[in-house]
């Protein structure tokens, strides 16, 4: 079964809402408190329901999404996270080289909310489709 693409997921209201909530929680307007937030996007193949789980808060420029919670009957189809440091102060809004490398390593698209929009990197959709391991695809 074909997994949803990054573009498919960005059209889902639950994903849009998760990106906005993560952005708000990143405290982008607070120079001392801003930090990365994010989590994982899942699909339940039996029902096609899309939902998200949040990860613990990250640091100013890093977030650990390496261990998605196992949700019975559901598969991880993307990660999402924020880039809260402002592009007006010279920060790159788009994906870092590590964002891209880890997305290919995990085998799922990486969705990023920054101050000037939403970016994607990594595979177009979950490697191998909606089959395999409950966490990241092997």
């Amino acid at each position, binding site marked *: 079964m074909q997994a949803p693409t990054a573009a498919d997921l960005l059209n889902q209201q639950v994903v849009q809402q998760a990106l906005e909530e993560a952005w708000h929680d990143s405290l982008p307007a607070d120079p001392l408190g801003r930090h990365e937030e994010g989590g994982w996007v899942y699909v339940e193949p039996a029902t096609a329901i899309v939902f998200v789980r949040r990860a613990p808060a990250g640091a*100013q420029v890093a977030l650990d999404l390496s261990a998605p919670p196992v949700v019975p009957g559901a598969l991880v189809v993307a990660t999402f996270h924020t*880039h809260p440091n402002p592009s007006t102060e010279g920060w790159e809004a788009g994906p870092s080289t590590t964002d891209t490398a880890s997305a290919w390593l995990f085998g799922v698209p990486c969705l990023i909310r920054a101050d000037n929009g939403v970016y994607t990197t990594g595979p177009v959709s979950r490697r191998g489709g909606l089959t395999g391991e409950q966490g990241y695809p092997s």
Partner: protein
Amino acid sequence: MGNTVFILAGDQALAIAQADATKAYHDLSPYRIQLVLEEDGWHVDYELKDPRLKGGGPHYIIEAQTGAITSKRYEQ
């Protein structure tokens, strides 16, 4: 007798990068640093040691004769 061309030492280039990177990133302990002298100057690249993390580091090109930062990217 030819002119002597002054080339900034690698540790001096690193010190210039480190001073700027510390101001922007505060904690540089998660990064591995690559320092390479290329035709356009010293390239100083900070990459996360853990490739499974989301995030990024600063990247610099430092003019090898003057020590000026000619290119700077703050990845996140």
